[in-house]
């Protein structure tokens, strides 16, 4: 695998804002400043992985030799509508109520 990206271990506040938006997290200015510094330090530490020669090494996303665990496609009892909605912040007529996806 060819490394096409040069590692940047000093993040900018703009990059932190971008990542926060990807993660859908509203952060205060203070948090952005703090995370800019702390994430840079942690990423700098993680950059030591680049020292390891991994040419020809397969990835391990998962330690077990299992794949495609199948089961019979049979109906089985599941949560009732009421139980599934019991913790909902907002529901209506048996459904979760969400805010409008498209703005007018």
């Amino acid at each position, binding site marked *: 695998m060819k490394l096409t990206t040069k590692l940047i271990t000093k993040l900018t506040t703009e990059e932190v804002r971008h990542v926060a938006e990807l993660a859908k*997290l509203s952060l205060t200015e203070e948090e952005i400043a703090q*995370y800019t510094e702390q994430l840079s330090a942690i*990423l700098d530490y993680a950059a030591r*992985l680049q020292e390891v020669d991994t040419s020809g090494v397969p990835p391990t*996303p998962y330690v077990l030799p*299992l794949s495609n665990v199948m089961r019979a496609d049979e109906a089985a009892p599941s949560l009732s509508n009421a139980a599934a909605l019991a*913790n*909902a*912040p907002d529901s209506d007529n048996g459904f979760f109520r969400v805010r409008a996806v498209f703005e007018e």
Partner: protein
Amino acid sequence: MPKPLYELTIHEALAGLRAGEFSAVALTQALLDRIDAVDSQVKAYLTVTREQALEGARNADARRARGEDAPLLGVPLAIKDVLATEGIETTCGSQILKGFKPPYTATAVKRLETAGAIILGKVNCDEFAMGSSNENSGYFVTHNPWDLDRVPGGSSGGSAAAVAAQAALGALGTDTGGSVRLPASFCGIVGLKPSYGRVSRYGLAAYGSSLDQIGPMTKNVRDAALLLQVMAGHDPLDSTTLDVPVPDYSATLTSSIAGLRIGLPQEYFIAGIQPEVEQAVRAAVQQLASLGAEIVPVSLPNTDKALPVYYVVATAEASANLARYDGVRFGFSAQAASMFDNYRQTRGQGFGPEVKRRIMLGTYALSAGYYDAYYGKAQQVRTLIKQDFEQVFAQVDLIACPISPTTAFRIGEKTDDPLAMYLTDVFTISLNVAGICGISIPCGFDNNGLPIGLQLVGPHLGEETLLRAAYAYEQSTTWHQNRAELK
């Protein structure tokens, strides 16, 4: 005067219950009274399920009166709050789940209940199990029963503190990077992290799905073996549980360890380790040798890469797993006007600082342009760490090493420096990365009277040998008999 019932081990309690010396109600009441007496200082419990526990105890007594028995009939336990319990508030230590009452129970907890266990309540932890000190709880900090100014370790700190304070006979914790073993070590109890795939994760709020395992935290090794026995095995609700037979863990516990080969990895005895910790662990290894084990120097050359691998892999998985907390189906909702603002504000306000930090780190590591450099690379180095263990386990049966470079640190000591906090897990994390099993057992005290833990490590599904060696060591020493003194 007979010893108070809360001081019993699980096996002692079962013997007393079976002999009719006391009832499950008396035992449960003794634990509830103990919680009332000490938990204002220790602060292990988020929720005490007093009425349900006593109801459960009455049922256990009725079953026993009918001549029934079960592996844990009438045994009161505490459950880490990241495990779903039907109808009982389950917060994961997070404000975002305040008030959440799951509609189902985690398989591991269900199996304990089916075996007759009584749930005393839900115990504190770092928010979503992210932390090494319990200081990341969204509610309050749990205190170490051995020194109330110190942390109990994390993330299963409430579980460890409850058992060490004798406010539960045993507890369940979860271990993603050391979260069972580290607090067990800091609180002077036994903590077992089973092999990945051994215990069902169904109903465990996911943090790092390829790393998470549920494990028992107990006063001794025999109790840990019993809880594992009850929980282990295939679960159709978790397709990552292995469909292989579960051995009888108690049956071989008392066998000799003569001839067992135990590896001593040079990479785990590094500069900066607290001298008393190194001395205690080396003395424990000598003790294992005197019991007939053969000590073999071994090398795990990629040890120092396990921590950076973990903080890329675990945070990447967490960033995906925690996407579900969006204020729509359960938990806190900021009630903002637009859909995206509601996501942003619900998550921004509902999550605590460490959880947000890890979501940010994981999101960055998975983002366009950085995926190969961080996540892809970490997965490759993970292969090398796994291979290190496979090569060592071709030569030896188990590995012995410290749990943590230090004993329990002071509350507030490391909260300003996340990286220093992460380094607490440097000796535990590689097991999760490789998916293998390990146990923390008490092996001494430092000059401040704080417990030190010995870590034994076994290959994948090597719990039988792991427990046997841990038991042999424990029974040849008295460390596990010491209890924290609380006023």
